């Protein structure tokens, strides 16, 4: 059973004041876009429109949007297998993202990586591998390089609770602490590493406590509260940019579906899933904006209609795109 999360776990004083309406609508729009893109991808996968597997991030959108939406173009993202929508947040055109799911020649990597391994080099989103915590190792290295080059760009690395158990996590965070690297470690603690519950992964109450061992701050926050994540990330990014070093944010959240689309996730109780669905990061934020009259039904309809149109166009583009030619298989084994 997942432990109970409430605002009481918050260690970080977030500043609720000072969010402009424009920012709030921007956050809402991006949350909605990530959710709609993800749900659309699930449907397409189940319709066998693309192969491999799909790792839905539905339910975890606030962690990605809150952490990544304020990044600059020259900042970097090191995504995990569940973070394909972080490409969208960074600004990757939807049509290329769907082309990647569809393994088409129009995708950024011309069909090399499976749907779970989406990157967008032009916008500094690192193409990930499957190795657990591998993106932390590489992302930490990028932060090391940025610091050496005296640039003020930062790296946001996403990972699940599962990635905190492996040695590479320790090596990366330890090194980042030693050199005060410009990186923000965003742990999307969804309480399940594939089918392994958190209680069998760690004896810690708070995963953010791990940061103490590396000499930098760690905070446990409500990962379904977009403003909590956003405020914490803005502070962490500013800290990294100022050369003060890394921050770990444990964002407590939940993936609504299985580890992947072929996982019925029977290891979780219905009650647990339903309880978390009532804490939907999109719906709850929408409700709060409606209550404050910042969002109206008409505005919501306009946003949803626009996203739907964009998704439809992107899917059409992907479906109509050619597959890569078999003759391309040997390209870029070697750099020259």
């Amino acid at each position, binding site marked *: 059973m997942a432990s109970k999360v409430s605002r009481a776990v918050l260690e970080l004083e977030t500043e609720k004041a000072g969010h402009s309406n424009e920012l709030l609508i921007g956050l809402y729009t991006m949350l909605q876009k990530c959710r709609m893109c993800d749900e659309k991808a699930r449907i397409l996968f189940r319709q066998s429109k693309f192969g491999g597997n799909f790792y839905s991030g539905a339910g975890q959108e606030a962690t990605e949007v809150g952490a990544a939406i304020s990044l600059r173009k020259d900042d970097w993202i090191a995504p995990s297998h569940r973070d394909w929508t972080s490409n969208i947040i960074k600004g990757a055109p939807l049509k290329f993202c769907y082309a990647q799911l569809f393994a088409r020649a129009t995708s*950024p*990597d*011309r069909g*090399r*990586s499976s749907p779970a*391994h989406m*990157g967008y*080099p*032009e916008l500094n989103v*690192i*193409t990930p*591998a*499957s*190795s657990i915590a*591998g993106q932390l*190792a*590489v*992302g*930490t*290295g*990028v*932060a*090391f*390089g*940025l610091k*050496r*080059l005296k*640039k003020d760009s930062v790296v946001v690395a996403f990972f699940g609770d599962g990635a905190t158990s492996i*040695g*590479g996590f320790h*090596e*990366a965070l*330890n*090194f980042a602490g*030693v050199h005060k690297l410009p990186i923000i470690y965003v742990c999307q603690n969804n309480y399940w590493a594939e089918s392994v519950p958190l209680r069998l992964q760690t004896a810690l109450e708070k995963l953010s406590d791990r940061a103490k061992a590396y000499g930098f701050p760690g905070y446990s926050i409500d990962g379904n509260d977009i403003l909590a994540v956003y405020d914490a990330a803005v502070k962490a990014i500013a800290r990294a940019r100022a050369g003060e070093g890394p921050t770990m944010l444990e964002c407590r959240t939940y993936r609504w579906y299985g580890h992947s689309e072929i996982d019925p996730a029977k290891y979780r109780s219905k009650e647990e899933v339903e309880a978390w669905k009532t804490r939907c990061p999109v719906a709850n934020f929408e409700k709060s904006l409606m209550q404050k009259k910042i969002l109206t039904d008409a505005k919501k309809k306009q946003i949803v209609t626009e996203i739907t149109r964009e998704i439809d166009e992107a899917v059409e583009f992907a479906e109509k795109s050619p597959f890569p030619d078999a003759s391309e298989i040997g*390209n*870029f*084994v*070697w*750099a*020259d």
Partner: protein
Amino acid sequence: MSRTITYIDAITEALDQEMERDDRVFIMGEDIGPSGGVFKATAGLWEKYGEDRVLDTPLAENNIIASALGAAMVGLRPVPEIQFADFITPAMDTIVQQAAKIHYRSNGAFKVPITVRICCGGSSGSGLYHSQENAAWFTHEPGLKVVMPATAYDAKGLLLAAIRDPNPVLYFEHKKLYRSIKGDVPDDDYIVPLGKAAIRREGRDMTILTYGSMMHLSMEAAEQMAKNGVEAEVIDLRTLNPLDKDTILTSVRKTSKCLIVHEDKRTMGIGAELAAIVGEEAFDDLDGPIMRITGPDIPAMPFSPPLEKAWQVNTEKILAGMEKLAAY
């Protein structure tokens, strides 16, 4: 100007000159700073370039490679060191899954020009965990270049070529050669191109394919066999991936016999691939079996002297192989 210097001094000189020439180049690893490295390969560099460019790292091989790799992705030219090839296993994930594949998986968008210096090979009393070669683990991975110099000249020229190459290069340096081998090394800038073997001795009767410290033993054996009228051609592979197939096959087609000599273990080793290439592409030219003189299929070099000696390839073992092959 050329001088006679040791293999290890050639390595140090290459690092020094390349760091001076290119400020993107920096070195990092365990004990490489004020201590100058376990074998002193980086001696004096910390004093000259400071901690910024000669960085002692935590004892964490995966992170040594990963931090270098990430730095390379943003335009730097890191030269990380793995203190002993025996200790490279924690870094396998980053080397194999990231360094070897990120250029391919990003369709050429990301480049990782890192040169990993790896001290390898057996010496006296080095024992199970300070004697391994392990180059064959990596020659199996397209995307990784693998080199091993046998001479002081190549130690410098291959290292400079490796650092300037846009690919990840694993540069295996043999600890036994560090101070046992001297050679003429130009003090100015030059490279030994990656992917090119060297013919160390010309001969008409058989080809010996070898590299690293085994090149020197093979040369000794070849000289002794010449007294019996058998002239062996000794090919020093220098680069283990990609292999210089042209030089290998041209030689075997000339001599019609092929003996492979390497220090590392036998089964699925580099010799197996060399034999397969020769078998597939020069079958009609062969007048005898493709033979191998290699380390045994025993986990690693044991510590006790008689056991160590039994493990190691030596000139006598090579000579025995040559005699057997010459009889065909």
